[in-house]
C-alpha cells in the first residue's frame, strides 16, 4: 500500500513540476503580456495543486492534510483575483496608448 501511495505521490509531484516548467517557459517565450498571464495562472494552480495532491498521502493526519488543501485554496483564490487585476491593468495600459 505504501509503495502504491509513494508512486502516486511521485507521479503527482512530477506532473506538478512539469507544470511549473511549462509556466516558466511560457512566461519567457510568449509574445505578449496577456498570454503570459494566462500561462502564469495555469502554472500557479495546476503546478501547486498537483504538488499538494502528491503530498497529501504523506501528511501526518487529516488536520495536516486539510492545512495543505486550505493553502492551495488560498493560492487559487488570490492568484485568480490578482490575475483579474493584472488583466485590467494591462487593458488600461493598452487603452492609454
Amino acid at each position, binding site marked *: 500500500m505504501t509503495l502504491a501511495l509513494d508512486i502516486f505521490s511521485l507521479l503527482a509531484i512530477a506532473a506538478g513540476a512539469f507544470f511549473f516548467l511549462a509556466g516558466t517557459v511560457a512566461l519567457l517565450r510568449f509574445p505578449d503580456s496577456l498570454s503570459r498571464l494566462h500561462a502564469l495562472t495555469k502554472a500557479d494552480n495546476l503546478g501547486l495543486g498537483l504538488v499538494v495532491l502528491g503530498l497529501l498521502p504523506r501528511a501526518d493526519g487529516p488536520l495536516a492534510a486539510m492545512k495543505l488543501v*486550505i493553502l492551495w485554496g*488560498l493560492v487559487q*483564490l*488570490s492568484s*485568480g*483575483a*490578482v490575475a*483579474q*487585476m493584472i488583466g*485590467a491593468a494591462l487593458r488600461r495600459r493598452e487603452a492609454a496608448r
Partner: protein
Amino acid sequence: MTFYRALDLSLALLVVGIAAWTVLSRDLFGAVVGYVAYGLLLAIVWVRLLAPDVALTEAAIGGGATGVLIIAAGSRLRSMQTSEPGDTANGIQKALAAALSALVAIALAAVMLLLPEPAPTLAPQAAGGLEAAGLGNPVTATLMVYRGFDTMLEKAVLVLAVVGVWSIGPDRFWGGAPAPLGRTRPKRALVFLAQMIAPLGVLIGLHIFWVSADEPGGAFQGGAILAAMWIIVMIARLADPPRVGSRALRLALVSGPAVFVIVALLGPFLGGSFLSYPPGFVKPVILFVEAFMLLSIAAAIPLLIAGPPLRSPRP
C-alpha cells in the same frame, strides 16, 4: 559536487544575481520588484538553514512590508514631482557606497570563513534554559526571555517610526486621516478577494502567534500577517485609514511597548529583578505581553505604509 551542494550554490548565486539587478536597475518599480524577489529567495535560504521563524519574518518584512512601503513612497514622490536634476548620486558617491558595501561583505565573509572549528555558539545554553522557561521554541525564549530588553526597545522604536511618519504631514492636517490606499472605485475582483482573504489571513496570523511558544512562529510574524490583511482591506476600500488623532488607534499602537514596560517594572516584585518573569508563570506572562505586541505591530505597519495625515481632522 553532490546534488545538495549544487543546489545551495545555485541558490546563493541566484540571491547575489537578483541583488545585483536590484542595485543596478534604472527604474524604481523594477528595483522594488527585484527586492521583493530577493526577500522571497532569502526566505527560502533561511528554511534551508533550518530557521523557519526567520524565514517567515523575512517573507513578511523583506518580501512584503518594506517592498510595499517603498512602492507607496515612490508613488507619492512621483505624484509630487519635486525631484530636481542633480538629485541622484554622482559618480564619487556611488563609488564610495560600492566600496563600503564591498568592505562589509568581505568582512562578513572573512569572519564566516575564519571561524574556528567547531564554531563558538551559545545554542546549547539557549536550549538548556528552555525547560526553566517552560517554552518549547528557542527563538521565542531568546526574544522574550534572554533578550527581552532588546525586544521591548524594538517595539518602542516602531512607535517612534510611526510618530516620525505622521509628523511629515502638513500641520493643518494633524489629527486627520492619511489618504486612502486604494482607488475610489476598486475592481470587484479585489473587493471579493479582500472579503475572502482577510478573515482567513487573520486566523492564520493569530495561529502563527499562538503557537510561537512551542513551535516556529512569533508575535512579529503574526502581527505582520495581520497588518498585511488590514492593508489589503484598505486597498479594497472596505475600510479607510483611521484618523491619526483617534484615541483607540493610539492606544492600540502603544499597548505593546507599554505592557512590556509595565511587566518589566513589576519584575523586581514578582521575579527578583527588572524584566524577570514570575517563576512558574513564565509562559502565560510571555503570551500576555506578546498579545499586546501583536496588536502594536498589526497597527504600526499599516500606519507606516498609509503615511502622514493628508485630510483635515474635521470633515
